[in-house]
């Protein structure tokens, strides 16, 4: 993975000291909160319900063991012994003290982590397929391009005061594990008939109050032109964006208002103009970055056989591992969705276990997923049993990847000052209701996503079953949605009808699922059945 050069380190170290001074001035009373707020947000520091919350960027979801151990150190030393992986591959610490933030950021800088651009009107953490560089179905590792884009855009003056936040996502596989069409710009690395790499470019996606699925605006952007094409997109948005109305500032609104054809025409026009400026980084710079992402030294001649004599291990292997591009290796998914637990939360001790396993069994690599799980991307199949045993000991061996209890949930009203309703308790009740593994496996892939407010951090628009918490006259109320997807078959979920209280929405979810069981044909997922039969049978079961 990428390693900072002296310039990267200087930039991050200088930023820490700059913020140290800003915090000192705020505490001394030389700045009001109104003056300080935009500065702290530029350093990922929010004020939430119970304390300050610090969001750390994890570029394209990739961490090395030293970084994971530093996350554990911060959780243990400055927080309450745990932290939370978000739906954009970041990590949040929910019990932070303002006066300690400069020291925390200095600790993170030692392992090349930071909180820059994890908030505010900027290009946020660039996310990617968590299997990048390992997946059997990808054409190449997209992360070098993500890193190049991250480097060129970070602190770039043109992108420092954007109309609103802006999110990129990368994949290089036909199966979309990065929800690229739910981003402002989604990029899929493809290879043309001449063997040249380029990107399918999707633009104008996003969730929140007004959800839109990104549209394909270019089928092949030469990879070497990626930056200038993205710059053209950002320029068109910057030119027209409604800075006067917070609800209309995101690029998805512009794409919708202009129409994708006109938006694309203007992007292409701007792209042609930028071509005359020579803005793209030289190929040598990409090659320098790409060298950091060279595949690990995989052993050859390894067997693909796995000893499945331990039935619990066999269950875990079948559900939690995925095909790796190198023979004899597997991708191991670590569930952070224990039944009755808090999805995405991980203790400092568990982080240390993950770091140890990554170091010993996965060439020092860990990944974070937008579904709030963790991945060891390069595990020898012969080592899977040892990995599983360590995960069992650490309480990290749950078997539920992509099943009904692998629920995405935002922190909700238990932590978040924007939330209208709690998300986590709903997820916990659903998980307990469907705890039986045989029942989960019988139901197959079923993605439930829960948001505690319209900002949609819990991706409810993309849930096979989505739940949105709202405030109805001071009490929590939950809308149920069906039919969304964040995968390659991206769709927007639709609301079933009137909302429910907390227990009512859990019952409604079960009714929807039982309706699916009654209607499904062989091999149909919940989403497939919903698409075939439509909303009515579900509504009838839920409200009838």
């Amino acid at each position, binding site marked *: 993975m990428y390693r900072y050069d002296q310039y990267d380190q200087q930039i991050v170290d200088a930023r820490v000291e700059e913020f140290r001074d800003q915090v000192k001035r705020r*505490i001394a009373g030389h700045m009001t*909160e109104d003056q300080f707020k935009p500065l702290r947000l530029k350093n990922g520091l929010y*004020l939430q*319900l*119970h*304390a300050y919350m610090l969001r750390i960027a994890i570029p394209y979801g990739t961490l090395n063991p030293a970084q994971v151990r530093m996350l554990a150190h911060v959780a243990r030393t400055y927080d309450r012994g745990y932290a939370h992986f978000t739906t954009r591959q970041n990590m949040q610490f929910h019990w932070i003290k*303002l006066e300690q933030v400069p020291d925390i950021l200095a600790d993170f800088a030692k392992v090349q982590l930071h909180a820059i651009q994890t908030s505010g009107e900027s290009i946020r953490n660039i996310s990617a397929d968590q299997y990048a560089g390992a997946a059997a179905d990808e054409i190449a590792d997209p992360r070098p391009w993500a890193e190049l884009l991250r480097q060129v855009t970070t602190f770039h003056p043109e992108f420092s005061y954007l109309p609103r936040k802006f999110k990129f996502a990368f994949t290089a596989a036909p199966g979309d594990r990065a929800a690229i069409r739910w981003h402002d710009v989604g990029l899929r690395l493809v290879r043309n008939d001449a063997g040249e790499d380029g990107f399918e470019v999707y633009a104008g996606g996003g969730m929140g109050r007004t959800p839109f699925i990104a549209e394909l605006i270019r089928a092949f952007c030469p990879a070497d032109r990626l930056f200038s094409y993205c710059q053209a997109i950002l320029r068109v948005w910057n030119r027209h964006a409604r800075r006067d109305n917070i609800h209309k500032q995101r690029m998805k609104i512009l794409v919708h208002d202009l129409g994708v054809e006109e938006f694309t025409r203007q992007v292409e026009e701007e792209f042609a103009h930028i071509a005359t400026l020579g803005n793209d980084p030289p190929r040598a710079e990409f090659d320098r970055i790409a060298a950091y992402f060279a595949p690990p030294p995989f052993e050859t001649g390894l067997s693909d056989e796995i000893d499945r004599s331990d039935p619990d291990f066999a269950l875990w292997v079948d559900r939690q591992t995925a095909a790796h591009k190198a023979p004899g290796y597997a991708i191991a998914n670590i569930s952070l969705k224990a039944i009755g637990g808090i999805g995405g939360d991980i203790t400092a001790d568990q982080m240390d276990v993950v770091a140890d396993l990554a170091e010993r069994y996965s060439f020092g690599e860990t990944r974070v997923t937008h579904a709030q799980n963790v991945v060891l991307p390069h595990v020898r199949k012969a080592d899977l049993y040892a990995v599983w045993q360590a995960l069992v000991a650490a309480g990290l061996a749950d078997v539920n990847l992509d099943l009904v209890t692998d629920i995405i949930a935002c922190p909700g*009203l*238990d932590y978040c000052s924007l939330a209208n309703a709690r998300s986590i308790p709903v997820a916990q009740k659903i998980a307990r209701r469907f705890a039986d593994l045989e029942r989960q496996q019988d139901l197959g892939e079923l993605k439930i996503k829960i948001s505690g407010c319209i900002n949609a951090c819990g991706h409810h628009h993309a849930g096979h079953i989505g739940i949105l918490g709202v405030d109805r006259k001071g009490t929590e109320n939950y809308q149920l949605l069906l039919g969304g997807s964040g995968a390659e078959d991206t769709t927007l979920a639709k609301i079933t009808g009137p909302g429910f209280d907390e227990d009512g929405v859990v019952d409604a979810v079960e009714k929807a699922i039982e309706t699916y069981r009654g209607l499904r044909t062989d091999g149909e997922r919940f989403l497939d059945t919903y698409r075939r039969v439509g909303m009515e049978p579900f509504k009838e079961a839920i409200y009838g």
Partner: protein
Amino acid sequence: MKLLTGNDLKTGAVTWWTGRDWSIHIEDAVDVGEEGDAIGSAEEGARRVNGPVVIDAEATADGPRPAHIKHRIRALGPTVRPDLTLKPADPQAGNWVI
């Protein structure tokens, strides 16, 4: 009744106006009547609180209870982590929030 609440500037902890200073315990909060905004402005200016806001609450035998669930969660802590709330040993604490 009306309560004045905010967050401690340095720690971010939820605090409640007691009539003299700030407490992390809502039981110590007093009815600020119509004075809340003025007290809040003065206290914020003195950097003893961050983001002061006046909220509605009801007086109960157990002390003030905010009208809105958001402020009841602020007062107690996350309902999903009773071990981290201000009443970790009280099994009824969650009922107070809901």
